[in-house]
């Protein structure tokens, strides 16, 4: 196992262990969060079950009573914090600190004071997180914001002293931003920069454009020009982003709840009202909801979760329109619906599933 894999293992273990602890006396809200966490990924289910098993076995630890409490007490000075426990955080349980946990996993002692100085000096580093095909994962950031990654997605995150930056490198993520008036939270793709104060919104980076949907609150969207990207990467002040610098006027538009924006590679920005914005984030429950969508779009969405893509052959088949609610993990449900359509043929061949017009 390389260093990075080991750090990750350690993070997952810490998270699972925290849940075992929380579930000793869960409040109703914690029950709900626990269920949401379990539903994120089979990996969480696995880690929790294994951790519960370890916890169970721990009841019989040192059954022969070879270890002497007094001898250990003598070695433990209550004022000295052991090297490995920086993750801890009260909140380590409730608010999981990825950066701190990663540091601890690497065996680095980051004192609290040093930790904040590290951020104050603006030398915060980019950290990347990604999900595999079919996997979903939720990150709780140090500032209290929560980032849920959909399948096959990658983000780079940097929490600096003046700004909180997220680069959505691929895929889709839902952001629940913790309000901090003087430290804006920005999400950027190649197409757009989305700036939030305290809100909940979804950003989906597609091949040709970026889609942004707001569930709560308000965000500002700026189509990304090379100059803007450059300014952001160089750590420009927030005012240059939303206000527009004199040299290159930048147009931003604000987007409110139940609105959806599309920003293309060319920098055009269009906004529309959506009556069912929660459909956009149904992916968090691994549901896919389509209302009068083309088969091309539907199959494209399914394929995000699949290792062996479903293929459509012939242009006629792509433009057929369907409505339905599906389980993202269960392509069979889609295929069953399609198989009932007399106009289509659904064939399983050696290298996957092919759909064409009869």
């Amino acid at each position, binding site marked *: 196992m390389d260093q990075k894999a*080991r750090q990750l*293992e*350690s993070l997952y*273990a*810490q998270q*699972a*262990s*925290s849940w*075992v*602890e929380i*579930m*000793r006396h*869960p*409040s*109703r809200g914690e*029950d709900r969060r*626990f*269920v949401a966490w*379990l*539903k994120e*990924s*089979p990996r969480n*289910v*696995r*880690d*929790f*079950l*294994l*951790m*519960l*098993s*370890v*916890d*169970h*076995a*721990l*009841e*019989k*630890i*040192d*059954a022969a*009573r070879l*270890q002497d*409490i007094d001898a*250990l*007490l003598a*070695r*433990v000075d*209550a004022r000295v914090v*052991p*090297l*490995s*426990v920086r*993750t*801890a*955080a*009260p909140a*380590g*349980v409730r608010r999981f600190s990825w950066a701190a946990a990663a540091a601890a996993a690497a065996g680095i002692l980051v004192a609290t004071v040093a930790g904040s100085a590290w951020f104050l000096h603006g030398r915060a580093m980019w950290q990347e997180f990604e999900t595999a095909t079919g996997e979903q994962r939720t990150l709780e950031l140090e500032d209290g914001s929560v980032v849920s990654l959909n399948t096959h997605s990658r983000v780079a995150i940097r929490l600096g002293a003046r700004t909180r930056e997220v680069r959505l490198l691929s895929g889709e993520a839902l952001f629940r931003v913790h309000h901090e008036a003087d430290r804006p939270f920005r999400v950027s793709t190649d197409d757009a920069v989305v700036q939030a104060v305290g809100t909940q919104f979804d950003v989906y980076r597609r091949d040709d454009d970026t889609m942004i949907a707001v569930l709560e609150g308000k965000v500002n969207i700026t189509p990304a020009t090379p100059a803007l990207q450059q300014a952001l990467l160089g750590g420009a002040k927030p005012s240059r982003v939303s206000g527009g610098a004199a040299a290159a006027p930048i147009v931003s538009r604000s987007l409110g709840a139940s609105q959806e924006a599309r920003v293309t590679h060319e920098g055009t920005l269009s906004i529309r009202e959506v009556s069912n914005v929660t459909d956009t984030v149904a992916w968090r429950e691994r549901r896919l909801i389509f209302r009068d969508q083309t088969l091309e779009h539907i199959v494209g969405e399914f394929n995000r979760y699949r290792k062996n893509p479903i293929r459509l052959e012939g242009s006629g088949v792509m433009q057929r329109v369907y409505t339905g609610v599906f*389980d993202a993990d269960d392509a069979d449900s889609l295929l069953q619906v399609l198989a009932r359509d007399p106009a289509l043929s659904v064939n399983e061949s050696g290298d996957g599933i092919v759909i064409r017009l009869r």
Partner: protein
Amino acid sequence: MISGGSQSASDLAGTAFRDHAGELHRFLARRVAKAQDADDLAQEVFARLLRVRNADLVRNPLSYLLGIATHVVREFRQRRLHERVLFDSDLADDLADHTEGAPEESFAAQLELRERLDRALKQLPPAHQLVLLLVKRDGLSYTEAARASGLSVHTIEKYVVEARARLRTILAEVP
């Protein structure tokens, strides 16, 4: 099983393990080191969890989870009983577990896990060792453990979480 009541959910989970999920526990005990092997189980449990109504699940998450997992383990075993043609060591162990005539074997995995935990325990910082021994071996409450060690209750809880996570990581690294 009611969660959120005065009885601790860990006790409830523990009870569920002992009473209903012995098989699950034995199954997992052998897989603690090689988490990969638990993937199939997790995939199946996960898929079934998604089918449970969220409101029901939230009302009693642990008992649902353990119930489903136990069920899935049972199905794995059943399937394996029917697939005797293939041989692998895990399968042989599972079949041994399943044979009612050999109860000592059914505990082998758990005993092995405990021995390995004892070895791993010694690799933890003294404060972690101390807290685990006080809480898990000696059965002290967090308040009692805090009094015995001079640490705060909060620190005790923190160390339990960390120590358990580290043990799990150590077990995964030392086959």
